[in-house]
């Protein structure tokens, strides 16, 4: 799959947590790139390693987490080779991050203005007065009403949606080249979600940034992303542009996810589910990690891990079904998934 010039390229990233139970591979050989000015969605269940991937890029992993291997290239620079103080000049300046919980991601004892201004004071060395003036501009940009008043407001005085707007203002203050949004709308109710997503998308175009959107919500992906990587148990199982992924999903897990979305066009008594549980990261299956839950799984799937292969010029899939070595019957994953699962 050929992409235009990419802003960030992650190759074979391996991030592990070293606990008393031994090594836990949270991210295990993940590769992707974010094309310049585009949005990559990273989708997966809790514990699939999507947040750890973003923290690895920011080099913000807490002990006992460690980046074990791989390469992260940001605009041609090797991020993993950078010193901590070099990283600090990148964080919040060239790569920014929005967190999931707007309620707790703001320091309760400082005003919104102070917290936006902090970015400018750290990265541009501005005085507090100058920084606050620029902060006011940011608040206007993210569409907070009466921004002059809000500048002096404390986080507890704002609603969740307003706080997330403030978080976005903080993240975008220094006009970053890449924005990593980690579940930016999960804690918000649906109408506010739509507003925030529209805001992020609008600002992305206006400022020309690239974005990595981490979410478990396929609806959000469909609305905002250009490319999608589906993660399962620390590995990418499918990578495609957003239209292809929704129209012709290839991996059984992707198909399962899409089919478990509630549909409004047909009468449903019961929602479809993917049976079983995500494997525990300290007890991963030997073969394909989805095999225990996959309705098509064969012996080959249980014994050997498939690789992420291009199956046409649009999709990359990690599944034996699309490989010459496939030992099961001929299947069309998308059409046969439901019948296979109910068997």
């Amino acid at each position, binding site marked *: 799959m050929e992409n235009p010039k990419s802003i960030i390229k992650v190759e074979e990233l391996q991030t592990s947590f070293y606990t008393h139970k031994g090594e836990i591979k949270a991210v295990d050989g993940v590769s992707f790139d974010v094309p310049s000015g585009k949005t990559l969605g990273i989708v997966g269940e809790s514990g699939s390693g999507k947040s750890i991937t973003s923290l690895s890029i920011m080099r913000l992993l807490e002990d006992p987490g460690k980046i074990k291997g791989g390469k992260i290239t940001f605009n041609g620079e090797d991020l993993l080779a950078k010193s901590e*103080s070099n990283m600090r000049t990148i964080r919040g*300046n060239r790569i920014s991050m929005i967190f999931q919980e707007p309620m707790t991601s703001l320091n309760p004892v400082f005003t919104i203005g102070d917290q936006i201004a902090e970015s400018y004071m750290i*990265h541009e060395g501005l005085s507090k007065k100058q920084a606050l003036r620029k902060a006011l501009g940011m608040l206007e940009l993210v*569409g907070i009403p009466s921004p002059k008043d809000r500048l002096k407001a404390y986080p507890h005085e704002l609603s969740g949606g307003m706080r997330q707007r403030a978080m976005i203002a903080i993240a975008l203050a220094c006009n970053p080249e890449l924005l990593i949004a980690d579940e930016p709308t999960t804690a918000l109710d649906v109408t506010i979600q739509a507003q925030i997503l529209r805001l992020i998308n609008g600002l992305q175009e206006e400022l020309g940034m690239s974005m990595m959107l981490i979410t478990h919500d396929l609806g959000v992906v469909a609305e905002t992303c250009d490319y999608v990587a589906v993660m399962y148990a620390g590995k990418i199982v499918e990578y495609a542009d957003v239209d292809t992924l929704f129209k012709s999903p290839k991996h059984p897990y992707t198909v399962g996810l899409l089919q478990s979305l509630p549909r409004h066009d047909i009468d449903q008594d019961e929602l479809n589910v993917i049976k079983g549980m995500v494997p525990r990261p300290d007890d991963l299956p030997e073969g394909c990690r989805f095999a225990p839950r996959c309705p098509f799984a064969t012996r080959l799937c249980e014994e050997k891990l498939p690789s992420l292969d291009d199956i046409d010029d649009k999709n990359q899939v990690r599944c034996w079904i699309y490989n010459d070595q496939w030992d099961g019957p001929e299947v069309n994953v998308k059409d046969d998934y439901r019948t296979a699962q109910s068997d």
Partner: protein
Amino acid sequence: MPETTVNVSTQNTKRINPQLENFKTMWRKLKTNRVAMAGGILILFFILVSFIGPLLTSLDPNSPDVSSRLQSPSSEHWFGTDNHGRDIFTRIIHGMSITLYIGFSSVAIGMVVGVFIGIMAGYYGKRTDAILMRIMDVFLAFPGILLALGIVAVLGGSINNVIIAIAIFSIPVFARIVRGSTLSVKKLEYIDAVRALGASDARIIFRHILPNILSPIIVQATLRVATAVLTASGLSFLGLGAQPPTPEWGAMLAAGRNYMWEYPHIALFPGLAIVAVVLAFNLFGDGVRDALDPKIKS
């Protein structure tokens, strides 16, 4: 671009600084606690006395007056005189500033060092934490007065050495409390958020963690002053602190010991003064602790 969302609930509200608000709530609760308020008023009174008291007494606290030795309390000498004929009331008034000086400065030093060690241990964790806190544990293993005794014995007896000794044994108490609070604040998401903003460790520690862990530090500091005063008097009583003729209460108590049976007032009044100061700080400190405890609603 998004349309403007109007959020009615947050409009035109008065700006409230949550930290200031915390202290206001604390003050409201504290006001209803009469015992604590009594302690607080006493503390203010003592501070006042230590500043203007010496100006109001005409007698010299240190020069002996053989003609008026060992007098019982009278209208002329309110608390009587000691074996050198010095007015005990005057000496206690003059001793007030010494007592408060020792109490406040030793706690201040102990607090600054202890908070620093505690934050470092809590924030950096791992080996830094292990090493710093094991050292603190060693200090904590000694009973406070014994440790202070040892330090003063090594450094030599003087008021400044007493301050150093008390400061040293206050350090681990602050370090422990601060480490615990730092650990809990460090895990909050907004700390991750400022780190993702590119903030340096120093900035995170002093700008984002410290303001959020002030309450336990304040409570501990208030209570520690009482301990410091008591220990300082104890050291002086044992002859290791203030040297005669300094009007230090512990030293006065020690001097009065020999006349205990015939002239109990010589030892009694310095003793009562110590009790009053310690009690005032303890009552006030307890009150502040209760007032800052969100679980206790008044």
